[in-house]
């Protein structure tokens, strides 16, 4: 009698698998650790819903959403007008968490450098080529800067991190805006490209006089040193989860209805200037009622209980005002 029971058990398990609602998404890699945790926790609370997520990159996420091969997308960069126009079913942007980008550099014995807007733009434009340039020294009185070459390190792979960083540079420097501009990959005026946060961090760590940019989460996890950046109010701030959330709060007052907003160089004394939302892209119309309910429930849970998971994984949570605005947007899904 044991064998039939086992067979029945397998059949039941199979039936359970079939009846579980599978929802598929694809997109940004940056929020993948927390998305993975959220989807898993949500599945434990709602065993009938299984959300699969492929972290293939923001571009791939948008492309798959446009082709209709996934139920939702995710991106570190809001969709532009052409991308929105290409969608068969319009999509809503839901900010989920916040990320920051920090400048990391290798100058032994010189921790906590302060970077003015002028200095950081000049360095990445290739116009400031020595560490003892007066434009860097001005914000760092008393620091003995060496007369060595600055070696710029940037991301070689297309990345949301690059988008946030170049979006910031475009806002603070007219020369950057009219020159390289902002995107997930750009034509860099100077420096060396490396793959991923670990590639940039590794090269900077290995090369004296190098400067690069990495995600705040990566820097925190690896206990890396990074510099302070001058914000829109003129204050020099080091990125922390609090200063990144403050950047979003600063932007919340003028939040556009579709949440497609850049929060770099955000106003406010405590707002860290190189910060960004990352978005889930949810179609406004989901024909399958079960999937629709599941996604709506997930969004509600993510915006409330889910936000509590952020800090332990190193993500900055959304400010309260933004959560309230987003909860209203959920009703647009039908």
């Amino acid at each position, binding site marked *: 009698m044991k064998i039939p029971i086992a067979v029945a058990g397998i059949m039941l398990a199979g039936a359970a698998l079939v009846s579980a609602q599978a929802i598929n998404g694809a997109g940004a890699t940056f929020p993948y650790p927390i998305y993975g945790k959220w989807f898993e926790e949500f599945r434990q609370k709602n065993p009938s819903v299984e959300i699969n997520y492929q972290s293939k990159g923001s571009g791939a996420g948008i492309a798959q959403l446009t082709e209709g091969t996934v139920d939702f997308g995710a991106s570190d960069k809001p969709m532009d007008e052409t991308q929105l126009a290409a969608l068969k079913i319009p999509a809503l942007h839901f900010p989920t968490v916040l990320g920051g980008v920090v400048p990391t550099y290798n100058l032994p014995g010189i921790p906590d450098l302060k970077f003015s807007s002028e200095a950081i733009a000049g360095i990445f434009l290739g116009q400031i080529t020595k560490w003892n340039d007066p434009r860097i020294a001005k914000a760092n009185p008393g620091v003995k800067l060496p007369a060595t070459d600055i070696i710029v390190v940037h991301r070689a792979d297309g990345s949301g991190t690059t988008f946030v960083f170049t979006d910031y540079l475009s806002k603070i420097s007219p020369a950057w805006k009219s020159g390289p501009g902002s995107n*997930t990959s750009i034509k860099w005026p100077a420096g060396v490209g490396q793959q991923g946060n670990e590639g940039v961090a590794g090269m900077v760590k290995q090369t004296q006089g190098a400067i690069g940019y990495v995600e705040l989460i990566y820097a925190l996890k690896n206990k890396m040193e990074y510099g302070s950046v001058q914000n829109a109010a003129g204050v020099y701030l080091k990125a922390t989860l609090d200063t990144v959330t403050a950047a979003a709060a600063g932007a919340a007052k003028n939040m556009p209805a579709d949440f497609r907003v850049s929060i770099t160089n955000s106003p406010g004394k405590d707002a860290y200037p190189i910060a960004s939302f990352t978005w889930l892209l949810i179609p406004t119309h989901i024909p399958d009622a079960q999937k629709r309910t599941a996604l709506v429930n997930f969004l509600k849970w993510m915006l409330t209980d889910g936000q509590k998971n952020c800090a332990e994984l190193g993500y900055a949570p959304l400010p309260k005002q933004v959560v309230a605005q987003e909860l209203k947007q959920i009703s647009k899904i039908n």
Partner: protein
Amino acid sequence: MAAPATSYASFRRSLIVTGDEVAHLVTLAFGATVVLITVLLVWNLWGASAASRSKFGIGFLWGTNWDPNANDFGALPFIYGTVMTSLMALVLSVPLGVGAAIFLAEMAPPGLSSACTFLVELLAAVPSVIYGMLAIFTVVPLMHDYVEPALKGAFGYLPQFQGPMLGVGYLTAAVVLAIMTFPYIIAISREALLEVPRDQREAALALGATRWETTFKVVVPYARLGILGSIFLGLARALGETMAITMVIGNDSIMHASWFAPGYTIAAVLANEFAEATGKLYTGALVELGLVLFLVTMVINALARLLVIATTRKGSAKAA
């Protein structure tokens, strides 16, 4: 039922005939897949690069600007980087590899030879990302601290050896590629040298040649085709190498005269930018780069064939 033996024999004979036919068809089908895959590949790349081909035309090949934001794409920096690093790698690895193969096949004591051969074959099978890590942690600092300053000191008057020394760039990529192609060249050249018939050597020795003369005037020329083959296999690996190169070339789409400067190869830019590329033109340009790499490989293979034909006519050995 009268003559079971005869019918059995004819049955067997017919089986052999059909067996041959089946074998013929099966192998034909296998052979056809090679052609089919090549055609499908080109057709696919051709179709997916339509947007870029119609916008940039043939000028794509010598365009020097690669700017995803301005939607302006040119392939020359990548072609230059790919060909340059591969050729520089061969300049480094061919003398070393062929020299080592001659030693292993002709001079080394048998025990040492088989031990070294085992190691060489092991090296040839190491995944390229491992070489990339070796490169980042060992080759890059070595180049940055010793090799590049020494070269700059000795040849600093040449534009190839000027500019800031970053440790990553064309030269480092070439050194890493040389390390990666080296085992291929040794392994295959050694096989070619061992294939040289014994009587060739004995004849040379009988004519009064020294061992050294035998090796260089008889054995190496005889094995020339195999050695050339090993070099082209090495070149093929160098042209298509992706992971290790991405880690050390510096990924800069601006062309530089200096060998110390960062550059880019076709395979590296595909690996880096394809996942996040958006828009028909951008992805089209990347696919077209794939097509260009295909073309570069084909041209080089054709040149290799020509070289083989040319040297066969002149020499004494038969083509393999």
